[in-house]
């Protein structure tokens, strides 16, 4: 593995679902990962050796993520895994990489309050999205929030944090509903009726997967007006908006480190290359971008260590910087989470997000919200 004059490939594992109810978004994460790997290989690989991906499809089943992670590490002899969208799938992989000492690169926003020496987190934590989203929503729409979420760890935890932020800023949560993981269209009709009655100022959605489409469509069918009561989300990206229809998504808000509309050279190149490969009407999104840049951070690190040993990789990646499509990002050495940009976008008729807020610099990851102990009004 450490020999310098070998052309043997660097083998890495990839775990994203191409089937099941998480496929819409995870398919884009898979593409982001493979695009980055292809670009690296086109340039001659890392220290003269190509990267060889070993890809499994866990089919949106959390338990399968744990089993495939084990298979990757035990049978395929891989130590680096790129993958996971939902927190339940991450938590299934966690014991495997911790016990066998692997490194999971996790390119998805999540609820924070986690740290592991065997994970690099490259999606946003609540201080990088929820805090500013809450502030913006209160300024623009009002203080009465209604929560709708899928019933699993991420929505419950995100809502706990959001509730904390809202209460401390003098707002209130006037409703809270959860739908089954992989819920169908009909699950949202009673919720929309309730929303019509309660008349909140904002609907905060933590619905993920296919059901996202049903939520926004049910909203549109009910004739509600996004200018008055928008749906705000941390997960609804260009991919979901395309799936629900541009007219349905228009006017709703999302907080994310990246939107396709981010204006810089690195992003223009990224978007053009992606379209060339997958088609002109294929949008990019935050999870795709994180999947893409984390492979590049991995490659830069491996170039230095020339070894995939987890402890060497981890020590070396801490503090490293990369010019990502979203702007300059770095891996925060305290937490092993990425310092990312905070942006809030409003979906337009073209299925893109108009940026209504952008942080002046990247925002340091604070997964345990240590710097946000009290409330928004003091920060």
């Amino acid at each position, binding site marked *: 593995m450490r020999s310098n004059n070998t052309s043997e490939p660097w083998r890495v594992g990839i775990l994203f679902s191409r089937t099941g109810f998480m496929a819409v978004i995870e398919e884009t994460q898979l593409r982001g990962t493979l695009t980055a790997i292809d670009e690296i290989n086109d340039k001659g690989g890392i220290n003269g050796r190509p990267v060889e991906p070993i890809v499994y499809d866990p089919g949106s089943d959390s338990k399968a993520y*744990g*089993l495939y*992670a*084990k298979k990757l*590490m*035990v*049978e395929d*002899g891989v130590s680096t895994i790129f993958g996971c969208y939902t927190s339940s799938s991450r938590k*299934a992989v*966690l*014991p*495997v990489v*911790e*016990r*066998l000492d692997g490194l999971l690169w996790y390119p998805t926003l999540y609820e924070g*309050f986690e740290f592991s020496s065997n994970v690099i987190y490259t999606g946003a934590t609540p201080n990088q999205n929820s805090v500013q989203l809450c502030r913006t929503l209160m300024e623009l729409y009002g203080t009465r929030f209604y929560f709708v979420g899928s019933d699993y760890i991420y929505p419950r935890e995100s809502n706990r944090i959001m509730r*904390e932020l809202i*209460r*401390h800023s003098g707002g*209130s*949560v006037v409703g809270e509903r959860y739908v089954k993981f992989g819920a169908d269209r009909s699950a949202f009709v009673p919720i929309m009726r309730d929303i019509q009655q309660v008349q909140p100022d904002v609907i905060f959605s933590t619905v993920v997967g296919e059901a996202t489409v049903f939520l926004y469509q049910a909203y549109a069918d009910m004739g509600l007006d996004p200018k008055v009561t928008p749906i705000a989300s941390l997960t609804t990206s260009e991919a979901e908006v395309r799936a629900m229809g541009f007219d349905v998504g228009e006017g709703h808000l999302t907080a994310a480190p990246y939107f396709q509309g981010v204006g810089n050279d690195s992003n223009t190149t990224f978007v053009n290359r992606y379209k060339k490969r997958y088609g002109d009407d294929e949008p990019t999104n935050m999870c795709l971008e994180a999947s893409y840049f984390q492979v590049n951070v991995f490659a830069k690190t491996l170039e230095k260590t020339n070894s995939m040993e987890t402890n060497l990789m981890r020590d070396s990646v801490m503090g490293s910087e990369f010019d990502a499509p979203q702007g300059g990002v770095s891996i925060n050495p305290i937490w092993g989470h990425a310092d990312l940009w905070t942006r809030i976008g409003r979906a337009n008729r073209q299925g893109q997000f108009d940026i209504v807020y952008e942080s002046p610099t990247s925002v340091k990851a604070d997964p*345990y*919200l240590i710097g946000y*102990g*009290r*409330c928004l009004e003091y920060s």
Partner: protein
Amino acid sequence: MARYDHAAGKRGPSHKTAASAGQSNIQAQQKAFWDLDVAIIARRDDEGERLMRELQRLRCNVRHIWPMPPQIPVQFDLVFCTLTEDLPQRIPWIPGEPEAALVVIDCGTGELDLQLIHNCAAHGVLHYPATPRTTQTCVALARGHFLYEKRLRGRIDKLDENLRTMRSVERAKSLLIRMKDVTEEEAYNYLRRQAMERRVTIGAVANAIIDSHELLS
């Protein structure tokens, strides 16, 4: 230690009490093995028989399983299992979340594969012959590591929970300071007093205050 005491005991009658104290000490230690549910997944040859007898002598509940099942059964406290190349695939649990202590039996032939042992995430390795010493140390260490890992996992869960509680207490405290116009110290004492009087945790009181504040406001 037992052997030393035994030898010392032979030297003269004056050591007899020390010797029997040592004997009862080792017996007390072995009590930890009593009624442990142990599976032996190994060929029932002379060596296998010997391991089985040794475990029975330690008063474990021993079950012999052979040929090797496609999945290692999960209902045991401790599993002795012959090391084979496909053992990791036969282990039904996820590495890091073991359901039993696992000792792999290395038969001593062929090339040593440390990566394979790593992949099994085993708690110990037994080399034949299964002498009383080898067997006892294997059982004790494997069981010890397994339980220690479990306690650590429990501690992490508890820490995660505490972290959430501390945030609730912080929030409740700041609510009290604002609503009742008291100092931070007084707010904290109030929470503590309430918890004591109601015999609930301080976190539960904090959550109740936060929830009721939400209802009232």
